[in-house]
């Protein structure tokens, strides 16, 4: 799943009838420190997230794994509102970074 910040809402009157009643939120991706990235996705909201909240988004066919989106033409869904992240920057990670990626 990816982390993002809800930055807006899409309103669409004419849409596939299977999308009627769904709230479509614009989610801009963020880094682990919540810094905004440039890419964004429009996601169906399954948890009642509001603008400004940091959320977790599931994408692809997995987005159809909710009661609300099951078998619907949806490829992104907000599945949680983030309270807190605990991130360790383990020393091991720096060692890993120094290793060549290609051999």
């Amino acid at each position: 799943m990816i982390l993002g910040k809800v930055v807006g809402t899409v309103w669409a009157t004419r849409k596939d009838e299977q999308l009627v009643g769904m709230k479509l939120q614009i989610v801009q991706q963020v880094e682990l420190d919540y810094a905004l990235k440039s890419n964004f996705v429009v996601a169906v909201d399954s948890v009642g997230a509001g603008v400004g909240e940091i959320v977790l988004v599931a994408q692809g066919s997995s987005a159809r794994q909710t009661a609300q989106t099951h078998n619907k033409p949806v490829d992104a869904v907000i599945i949680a509102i983030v309270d807190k992240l605990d991130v360790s920057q383990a020393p091991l990670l720096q060692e890993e970074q120094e290793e060549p990626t290609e051999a």
Partner: protein
Amino acid sequence: MNLGRVIGNLWATRKYPALKGRRMLIVQPLTFTGAQAGSPLIALDTVDAGEGDVVLYATASEAAIPFHPGLTPTDATIVGIAERIDHRDRSWHTA
């Protein structure tokens, strides 16, 4: 499936009901030699992985298979903990 290292936890009170009681971990993808590969992602845990563990995770709709039957909206799920990796360029113990 892919390899990654668990670098943290995510806490969320308001979530899709099927995610209640599921741990959500922050995973840094790795190459088979242990180098960082791309940006961290969030994955559900099925094997009690902990911070620092090198894990095997499934992505896309297959990530929901461990939770069948029933709908669980996940596109990344940890399905194993790797102890040792043998690769022609590097054999390594993950701990």
